[in-house]
Each structure stands twice: as C-alpha cells, then as structure tokens.
C-alpha cells in the first residue's frame, strides 16, 4: 500500500522523531509513505476567514500533488492535518473559494478530490489494530499512558470526522494495541494554549497545566501526542512526566526505535 505523505516543516526540524518514526513504523506495518515533492509549509493554522485565499494555496498544492500521484494523502502533525483537511473541505464545499483558488492553480482544477488520512486514521482504518498487535515485538505492558488529543485532531468535527470529539478513543485504542494501559482523563481534548505561547506564555502555561494535572491525577506516567506544539507547550509548562510523540511510542513497541539512534 502506498500513500502520498506530507510531513510539514516542524517534522523536518524540531520534531524529526515524529517524522522518522512515522516512516519506519509505516514500513513495518506494510505501508509506503511517499513524500510529496517540493511541498511548502501549510501555515500552521487554518484561517477560517472566507476571503483568505493566498494563505491556503500551499495546502491546495499539497492536495493537488497527491491527486496527481493518484494516491491518498497521509499527514502526521496534528496542525498540518487540521489545516490541510479544513482547506480540502473548503475546496469541496465553498464553490466561491474554490474558484478563487483555482485561478491561482497553474494546471488543472482541484475541487477537493483527495482523501486525507491522519496517521492515526491510517492505522485504524487502513492497517487495523490487529495488524499492529501482530507487529508488536516490544509490548509496552504495564505502562500507563495518557493520550493527549488537543484541539486540532478533533475539531471542528463536521470537517475532521476523526472520532467522537468529546469522548475520543482512537489513540487509546492504539495504546491498547501496543500492550499498554490507556489513561482516560477529562481534559484530553482541551487546548494546550497553542500559538498564544508566543505572546502570552503565562496563558499557555495555565492551559497546559490543566491538562497535565488532569492526566497525572488519573494516574498517567507518560503523555502521548501527535502535535509538536502541544508537546512543546506541555514540556515548557514544567510537565514532570515524559511527553512523547505517538510515532515514537509506536516505534518502541514495534522495535524500530533503536535503529534511528544509530
């Protein structure tokens, strides 16, 4: 199985682990991720304003490239996923926006035809947890892991359609498949503070702490996330339990973590 793959800029830089392990694990699970050529940054956040066109072109090009390759698109970074998916949704449902965008597109029209999977959806819907279980060589038995979804994977649900936005299970199910124990806590879908970190670090710290406290109170030993900014915010807020990328956790269980360190 082959998919187009969009890592995004953070994954090429500060969050290399998220990217490298995603590819390694995919290979183990029998999926080839083919990186889109010459991609550009998605912009980090999706601007909901209807008149913002230019800021969304890079996402459309990524989607168009996947379409040209005749492949579905896979993303890992929560932010990239949110931006690309929301852009695609706008291309499908907002004809005025789509026609404006298509005026900028050198080649054929694009109208939201590409199907997008987040890495988690790829595992759940394409690979299947059973296959993951089969491939686990290093069961994470006994580990109490808290899934941190944040906002970007789940909301707005009318567009993202990943899971129940208020009571998601997609990461917990993966944690179970890896042999560990998921810790369910109520603030797992609450915002970490996001980009406000830049201007008002104190607000970000406050928000992140709500999440961390809630997870710890529920007995978490590790927090797992798919978003580099979430990880950064949690860590910068004095989180005293490890915050890891979900691909890193997956790599550990699949026994491919050491390889990258060599």
């Amino acid at each position, binding site marked *: 199985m082959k998919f187009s793959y969009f890592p995004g800029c953070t994954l090429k830089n500060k969050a290399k682990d998220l990217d490298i392990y995603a590819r390694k694990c995919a290979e183990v699970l029998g999926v080839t991720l083919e990186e889109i050529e010459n991609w550009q940054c998605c912009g980090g956040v999706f601007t909901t304003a209807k008149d913002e066109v230019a800021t969304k072109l890079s996402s459309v090009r990524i989607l168009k490239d996947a379409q040209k390759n005749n492949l579905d698109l896979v993303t890992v970074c929560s932010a990239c996923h949110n931006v690309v998916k929301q852009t695609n949704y706008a291309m499908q449902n907002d004809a005025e926006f789509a026609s404006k965008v298509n005026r900028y597109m050198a080649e054929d029209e694009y109208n939201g035809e590409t199907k997008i999977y987040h890495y988690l959806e790829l595992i759940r819907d394409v690979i299947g947890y059973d296959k993951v279980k089969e491939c686990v060589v290093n069961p994470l038995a006994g580990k109490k892991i808290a899934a941190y979804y944040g906002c970007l994977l789940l909301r707005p649900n009318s567009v993202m359609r990943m899971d129940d936005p208020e009571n998601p299970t997609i990461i917990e199910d993966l944690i179970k498949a890896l042999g560990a124990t998921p810790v369910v806590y109520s603030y797992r879908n609450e915002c970490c503070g996001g*980009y406000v970190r830049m*201007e008002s670090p104190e607000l970000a710290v406050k928000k992140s702490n709500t999440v961390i406290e809630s997870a710890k109170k529920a007995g978490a030993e590790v927090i797992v996330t798919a978003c580099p900014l979430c990880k950064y915010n949690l*860590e910068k807020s004095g989180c005293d339990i490890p915050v890891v990328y979900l691909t890193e956790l997956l790599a550990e269980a699949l026994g491919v973590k050491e390889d990258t360190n060599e």
Partner: protein
Amino acid sequence: MSNSKKYLREEIIRISGVNPKKCMRCGKCSATCPAYDEMEYHPHQFVYMVENGNIEPLLESESLYRCLTCFACVERCPRSVEPAKLVEAVRLAAVRKQGNNRMTANDVPELIDDETPQQLIVSAFRKYTK
C-alpha cells in the same frame, strides 16, 4: 446604526460566514471557552456585539489575541453559530489595518528558544500579522 457600523458589520459577517442571528443566547460558547478568564469580551459577547454592530470595542480589545482558535465553542454551539469564526474575522479586520501587525520578524528571536517548533512561529505570524 450608522452606515460605517453597518458596513463593518456586513464585512465581518461576510468574511466569517457566520450568521449571528442564529444565536439563542445560551452562553455555551463562553461556558466552554478555555481562555475565558483572559478575555475582556467573551465569545457570546462577540456574537451579540457583532449582531448589534458594536464592533469598535472588539477591534481595540486584547481579547482578539487571547482566543486560542481551539474550536471548542464551534463544536459545542447548539445553534451552529461558530463564534470562533467571528473572532477570527474581527481579528483579521484589526490586523489588516495599516500598521497593526502585532509581531515582526525582529521580535521573534527574543520570543523563542532552542526547542520552539516552527509550527509555533508560523502560526503566530498567521495570527498576529496580516
């Protein structure tokens, strides 16, 4: 309502695609907002004030930059009003004004550290500048 107020209101409604008239004043957006305590004007007030054309105070308010765009209000609004989209539209109206960029490239080195993900920098630029 004066013409300029009307114009601004129409503009915000057009950019956001939100119909504030759908609001039934339940306050669930504000009940749900994680940045509530940091905001001078709360999500439900954004909706109400835009509907009434009372947008000037919002344009001046720091609240615009406290909204985390976490979409919790969008998700939970029973009337599908989508307050976050209104906040975004008003914020854009503010930063698009000449000289209203809140952040320049020169400010960045001071604000970041070794671990700061690129994602944070680009998102902040999207949010604070035009």
